[in-house]
């Protein structure tokens, strides 16, 4: 079974010699099996994540959260899924029926297509292709079209406003995402997600000892500090904006737009948008993991040396999923911590802060790749300046409102 999936991948389906070498039913069957596994995984993962998100929100707000279905409410997501499936599918009269019905599938299809190119474990993705990251960024753009479709066909001003905001936001934030990843691509010299993961197995900051097995210190995020760290923060922030989540959720701002582009949707069609949102979160986290956090590599030691799960395949899967889910949970944490941005603040952040900073990292990483010492000098200067700025901010920042200023305890008389 493992051999079946590992030997024939989706992309091979489009590769003449591989398909020529295998019977046609085998090619079809393998493609079908891989797709079915991924779709079902997305469904279960999104379901569990809805519960997780509600629980995290509840505990951050000193509540209990869902508690009725199953022990500690742990089966709530199954009940929710069942409810969504049997709910009536309402299509308002003033809609463009065809596009209204089509839009959820376009959105979900765009998210799902990105999943087949992620490097889940050592040597295996459903589709290993040498344009991996370009492909992922490309198919994700179908999501924008789907959102515009949903917003326009709903025939409702809330949905239309939400769709326009969402599309403008996603298209804008693709710029810092692309430039931040471009800087990392200079280091790796490949677009293949598997090769990018493998390239972080060894190497040292600034490229001084390319043969050094440094565990987590060989990961992309430590290659050219502080620029790669900047790139990571830029990518993660902009990725968060691309998934339309708080603090960047103005497309769905409840206080202004009811629910944004999916205002008019209900039942299963609504849940497709929901699935797509969670699928997108995972894709953003997985790309961040692959580019900056070593992909399927363990943080300490060599993947083939320390196989506590008895197989490099399973161990790679374990580390990749752990890192990605950690980043997904960080997104939830941010959602319940930060307030929502305004539209102008959002565009200001994108075009005046993140994009110039991304260009700076691109330039500095390029200089570092050209010459390690140049990178070290640039990195030290900018790193110290950044530390000084942060330190100054911290020292001179006023105490947050609502808390009394810190003062020495008054001795009782």
């Amino acid at each position, binding site marked *: 079974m493992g051999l079946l999936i590992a030997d024939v991948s989706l992309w091979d389906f489009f590769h003449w*010699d591989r398909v*020529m070498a295998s019977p046609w039913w085998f090619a079809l069957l393998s493609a079908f099996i891989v797709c079915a596994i991924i779709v079902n995984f997305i469904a279960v993962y999104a379901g569990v994540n809805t519960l997780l998100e509600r629980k995290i929100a509840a505990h951050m707000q000193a509540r209990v959260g869902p508690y009725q279905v199953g022990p500690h409410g742990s089966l709530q997501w199954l009940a929710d899924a069942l409810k969504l499936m049997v709910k009536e599918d309402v299509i308002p009269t003033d809609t*463009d029926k065809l596009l209204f019905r089509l839009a959820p599938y376009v959105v979900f299809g765009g998210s799902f297509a990105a999943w087949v190119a992620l490097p889940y474990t050592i040597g295996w993705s459903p589709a290993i292709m040498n344009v991996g990251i370009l*492909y992922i960024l490309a*198919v994700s753009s*179908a999501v924008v079209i789907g959102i515009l479709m949903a917003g326009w066909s709903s025939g409702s001003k809330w949905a239309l406003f939400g769709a326009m905001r969402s599309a403008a936001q996603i298209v804008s934030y693709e710029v810092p995402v692309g430039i931040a990843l471009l800087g990392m691509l200079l280091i790796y010299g490949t677009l293949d997600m598997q090769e990018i993961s493998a390239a972080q197995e060894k190497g040292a900051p600034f490229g001084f000892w390319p043969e050094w097995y440094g565990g987590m210190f060989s990961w992309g995020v430590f290659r050219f500090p502080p620029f790669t760290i900047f790139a990571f923060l830029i990518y993660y922030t902009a990725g968060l904006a691309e998934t339309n989540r708080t603090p960047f959720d103005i497309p769905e701002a409840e206080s202004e737009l009811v629910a944004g582009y999916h205002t008019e949707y209900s039942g299963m069609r609504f849940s497709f948008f929901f699935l797509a949102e969670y699928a997108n979160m995972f894709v953003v986290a997985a790309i961040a993991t692959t580019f900056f956090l070593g992909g399927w590599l363990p943080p300490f030691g060599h993947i083939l040396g320390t196989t506590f799960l008895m197989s490099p395949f399973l161990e790679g899967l374990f580390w990749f999923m752990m890192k990605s889910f950690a980043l997904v949970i960080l997104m939830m944490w941010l959602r319940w911590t930060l307030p929502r941005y305004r539209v102008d603040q959002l565009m200001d952040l994108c075009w005046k802060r993140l994009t110039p900073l991304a260009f700076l990292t691109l330039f500095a990483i390029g200089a570092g790749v050209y010459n390690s010492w140049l990178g070290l000098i640039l990195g030290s200067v900018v790193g110290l300046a950044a530390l000084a700025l942060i330190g100054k901010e911290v020292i001179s920042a006023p105490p947050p409102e609502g808390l009394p200023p810190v003062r020495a305890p008054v001795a009782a008389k």
Partner: protein
Amino acid sequence: MPVSELLLNLVFYIVAAAALGGGIAVATSKNIVRSAFALLTVLFSVAALYALMRADFIVAAQILIYVGGILVLIIFAIMLTHKITDVKLSNESSPGPVSVTACAVLFALIIAAFVYGYSWNTEPRVVRGSDFGKAGYGELSMYQGGGKTRLTPAGTILDGFVRLKLKLRSQAATTARAQFGLVKLKKTGEWEDLPAEKPVRFSVENGSYAAWTERERLEEGKYRWRVRLVDEDGTETPWAEFSAVKGTVDFASEKGLTRAIGRAFMGPYLLAFEVVSVLLLAALVGAAFLARKEVRE
């Protein structure tokens, strides 16, 4: 069951039908927003056609630029236009006799070029080794090795990967196999035959039959290559020699398409690339100028 040619043909026809259907929907839909969304089908289908041709970088670029950029812009422009749904579209008017004739003539010309410019064999013809001289032509494609690969009139100097490929011009099935060999220059005027490769089968590639073999890490030196056909019963044709300058250097090797495109843009085609960028810049300046003028009025 040897090949799934049927399946790939099926995929091709489905994708081609989707592209055509989407195109017809774009042209005939009376609702301009639907036209814009139907364009999505066309763009994705064309990307799938590129995928069938194994041009993976072009697939990504096609979707990234056309779907992610241009289509979003088009939809934005339509949605931001005042009362766009009230506009009467010109496809409701009946076409004049002149345009009908012009279109029909053009269409007939294209069809004629397809039918008469290419040999369409309905019956698969078995190519014997003796047909080789008429039916085949050699093609030398090279992986860009360390960047030092270059061609000289006397042969080729290699330091990387090399792919030798033979294409049969006709669309005929063949039971023969191709055997490739390399000839190395030892001294001036003295060539040494390297041991021949194992004979390889032909497979379908873009509608014609092709066979190829790959060699890694050849020693640096001057080479010529040759090929012959081996029939099922073991008869061999005489070697056909190809000097490297006669073969075409093909950048579209499997592993390095993106790299080869990058090298080509930053190398031999840098000037053309930059000129196109200037054209886009001019278009951008023009658009900004037009937009400003409209605001002032």
